[in-house]
Every structure is written in structure tokens, then in C-alpha cells.
């Protein structure tokens, strides 16, 4: 939904707003792939208090809400995991120094995005975007081998143009469609193991646990909606933050009592 008329000045700014949002997401993915998570939060995410409080990072199993919660999960807990993994590698490989520069030794992270679909609000203050990422992550093991996996996922976000004029990430939702080992036939992958996947275990205990996206049933839940529909002004109930989470009804395979 848009205003009926925009001036030429308004139109070209709107064109560039979409470009800047796409650029922002691409830069976010590079920082993620480089393990520069603190820099990502400090430079690309919202800075104004009203947005920091409601910022969120979600995945299939719920949402971390507020920049402090996000930072604790996304940076502090992740750094602890990197340290633990390095400890294990150093224990086997005495030649490997246990220093911060060796975090991620043997790891490869590739969550590059493609297929952008970005919608700018009619009022120009917010934007929504959905990308697909044919993600790859390979973790080095202490013996020097690695565990390589595919992580195909939708990456969705709400963006806000702050008073500075800069676009920032407000709500991020990473909707993982499947997780399986490289070099295996997806058709041979056991779907219903009953055990949490590595990605689920890593997602920890979010502020708001919730079944956001359950791909066990062949993506039948239809969330997050793609593409985002045109809109005039931001409505949290239609966003990619926790207030926009799908409202599973009783009888839906994703419905859980805790859904509320």
C-alpha cells in the first residue's frame, strides 16, 4: 500500500531506501560469516532506546527480545561455545595456541543471501524483507576433520529508518527449513528423530519460546509469509518480531499448549 502520488524526489529516495536495506542485510551476512557478531550488533542493529527494547532475533523455536538478550545469546554465549571448541582442539593439538585469534579454527560459515524481496512502507519509515540463504556451516573437529552441513533457511527482517536517517535491523527471523549433512541425500535424512537438532540446541533458551516455524511437515506451516505484502505503516502484528508470530490454532500440527 502506498500513497497515491509521490514526487520525483520522494520516489528516488524510496528506490534508494530499498537498495540500502538490501545492502544492510548483505553486510549483516558478511559480519555473521566472519564471526564479527559484536560489530554486527553495534553497527547494523537499532540504536535508539525505543527500538533496542523491542528488537528481536528469532528462529524456529522462539525469540530473543531486547538488545541485551540478543547480545547475551548471539555474542556472549556464542563466544563461550567458540572457547569451549578451541579448548577441545588445543587439548588434542598442542601446536594450536589457545588464543582468541584461533576462535573458529577449522570452521567455515556461509550464510549468504539471495532472492531478496523487500517492501518499503508507504510512510517510508520501515521496511520488511525476506531472503533465501542456501546456508552452509562446517565445524572443525579436534582431530582435524569436519562436520559439514547444509542450512537452507529463509532470512526475514523488519528494518527501521532511525532519526539519523540510517536504516537499521529491528527484528530478525531466521527460519531454518532443514539441517542435514553435506554429501548425503536429503531423501535419506531421518526427519522425525524426536531429538533436538544441533541448530535447536544452539538456539538455547529464548526469551519467548514458541514454535515459530516447524519444517517437519514439509514447510506446511507457511510461516514466515513470503513475500511480505505492501503496507503503509508498521503494524507489529504483521511484523517479523514476536508480536507477529503465527497464531497456530488448535488442531494445527504446530500447535502447542505453550503457544498460548
Amino acid at each position, binding site marked *: 500500500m502506498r500513497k497515491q502520488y509521490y514526487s520525483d524526489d520522494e520516489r528516488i529516495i524510496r528506490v534508494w531506501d530499498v537498495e540500502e536495506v538490501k*545492502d544492510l542485510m*548483505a553486510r549483516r551476512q558478511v559480519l555473521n560469516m566472519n564471526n564479527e557478531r559484536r560489530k554486527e550488533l553495534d553497527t547494523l542493529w537499532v540504536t535508539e532506546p525505543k527500538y533496542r527494547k523491542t528488537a528481536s532475533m528469532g528462529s524456529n523455536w522462539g525469540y530473543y527480545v531486547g538488545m541485551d538478550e540478543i547480545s547475551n545469546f548471539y555474542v556472549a554465549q556464542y563466544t563461550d561455545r567458540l572457547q569451549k571448541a578451541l579448548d577441545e582442539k588445543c587439548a588434542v593439538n598442542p601446536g594450536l595456541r589457545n588464543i582468541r585469534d584461533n576462535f573458529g579454527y577449522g570452521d567455515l560459515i*556461509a550464510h549468504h543471501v*539471495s532472492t531478496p524481496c523487500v517492501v518499503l512502507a508507504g510512510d517510508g519509515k520501515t521496511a520488511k524483507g525476506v531472503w533465501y540463504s542456501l546456508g552452509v556451516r562446517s565445524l572443525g573437529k579436534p582431530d582435524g576433520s*569436519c562436520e559439514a552441513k547444509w542450512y537452507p533457511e529463509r532470512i526475514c527482517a523488519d528494518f527501521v529508518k532511525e532519526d539519523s536517517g540510517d536504516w537499521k535491523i529491528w527484528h530478525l527471523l531466521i527460519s531454518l527449513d532443514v539441517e542435514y549433512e*553435506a554429501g548425503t541425500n536429503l531423501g535419506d535424512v531421518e526427519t522425525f528423530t524426536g531429538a533436538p537438532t544441533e541448530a535447536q540446541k544452539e538456539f538455547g533458551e529464548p526469551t519467548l519460546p514458541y514454535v515459530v516455524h516447524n519444517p517437519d511437515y514439509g514447510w506446511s506451516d507457511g510461516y514466515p509469509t513470503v513475500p511480505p505484502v505492501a503496507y503503509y505503516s508498521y503494524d507489529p502484528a504483521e511484523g517479523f518480531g514476536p508480536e507477529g508470530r503465527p497464531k497456530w490454532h488448535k488442531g494445527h500440527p504446530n500447535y502447542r499448549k505453550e503457544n498460548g
Partner: protein
Amino acid sequence: MSTLRFNTEELVGRFEDRRDVKNLAGKYVMSLLLKKEPTILQDLWSARDDISLGVDSGYYAGRDALAAYYASIDAATKKKAQVLKEVFPEDLGEYSDEKLYGRGPMEIRSLDNAIIEIADDGETAKAFFYVFGLVTDISERGPVSNWVLGSCCFDFIREDGVWKIWHVLYLEDVDTPAGKKWGDPNALEQFPEMENFAAMKGVEPAKPNRPMELRTLYTGSRPFTKLPKVPEPYDTFANTFSYGADSQEAWR
């Protein structure tokens, strides 16, 4: 890029520039897929002498080095087609050399995750793309299809009003046969040499004229390796880094 520093006319022009260099990058990888090596230098690259292509094992620096590189690919492409003709005489035996050209290899590289900056002066541009590819080639092991993951970075320069490629930095992290484990250094060895493809032995592209290790392929014991530097807003090329052979700032 801040839109505040430019007027409406300039913003329209800069959007067109962004679109044009993105298209040029697309033409570059599509030209590799379509085996346009015989004409790619003339069609897409700058006329300057300081052009360069960086790969994991070093730089092809200068016009002569790039010409020799593309000529070696051209020769290999012809050889592959001839070998296939011999292996499949019933299917390809009647084909002319021209019709055969390009059969065998299939180099698919999609350019994702675009980060593009146009200089304030509009004379140059820079781009970073993540590369997700499927590259099939013909060697003494027959046809083998590899997953390819890496990055492709460009410096572009405007010549007579047309954008051209100045520098390419193409670095791979993964180049592993499909169906095998990434990071397995012996994955290719699992494809034995085939007698009827023996003529392909030793057919390789020319080596970089400035050999140096820009990047090593991923294994489970490779130190964590960041992506090359991505473009940041800049006013003129002298005030930013280069993806060219004379600067190592982009990947160090």
C-alpha cells in the same frame, strides 16, 4: 551510501550505475558459463594495462597475463570437446569444431549477497558477491561436478561512459565434488582416472604470473579465514582499497 549528499538527478544516475555494474558482474560469470573466454577480455575488461585477476594461487597481473590465461582456457575447452567427441563418436562424431566448442565443462556460479559502492566521483565502483556454484569440468577423471563456495570481488572503471572490469578477486573456500564431504582433501582422489579421458592429463590453465597464496581451500584444520574486505562508501578510488594485484589489503 547516504542519499543526503546527492540531488535527485544524481541519485537516479547512481542507481543506474549500480544496476549497470551489477549487470556487468553478471555478464562476467555468465561469460564463464558460456565459454566466452576468447572474447571476454575485449568485451568486458578495461583497456588499461593494470587489469588483474586474483585467484587462490596468485594474480594474473597485466593485460598480457590475462590474455595468456584466457587463451589457455580456450585451448583446454577445445581439447575437452575433442576428447568428448572421441568418447561419444555416435553422438558427437558429426559435429563441427565450432558446434562442439564448449561441450563438457559447465561452470555455474551465482552471485549472491551483493555489496556495491559507486565512488562519489562516479568514475569507479566496487562490488563484493558471495559465490555459490556448481562447476563441472572434464579432466583425466572424466566429468566431475564440484560444489564451489567463495567470493568474487570487482573494481569497475568507467571508460568512455561505459563500465568495464578493472580488477577481479575470485577466491574459493570450497571446491569439492558433489556428494563428498567438504573439507576432505582427498575427495577428488575418490574419482579414479579414466582411460578414455587420459588425453586430458596435464591440460590446465596457465599459472598466475604472480604466484602467491591468497587463500587456501577449507579443511577442518584451516585457521578461521574471513571473507575479503567488502566495499565501503568512498569518494574517489585513491581513497579506498583495491582488489587489484598491487594491493593485498583486500584479503590479508
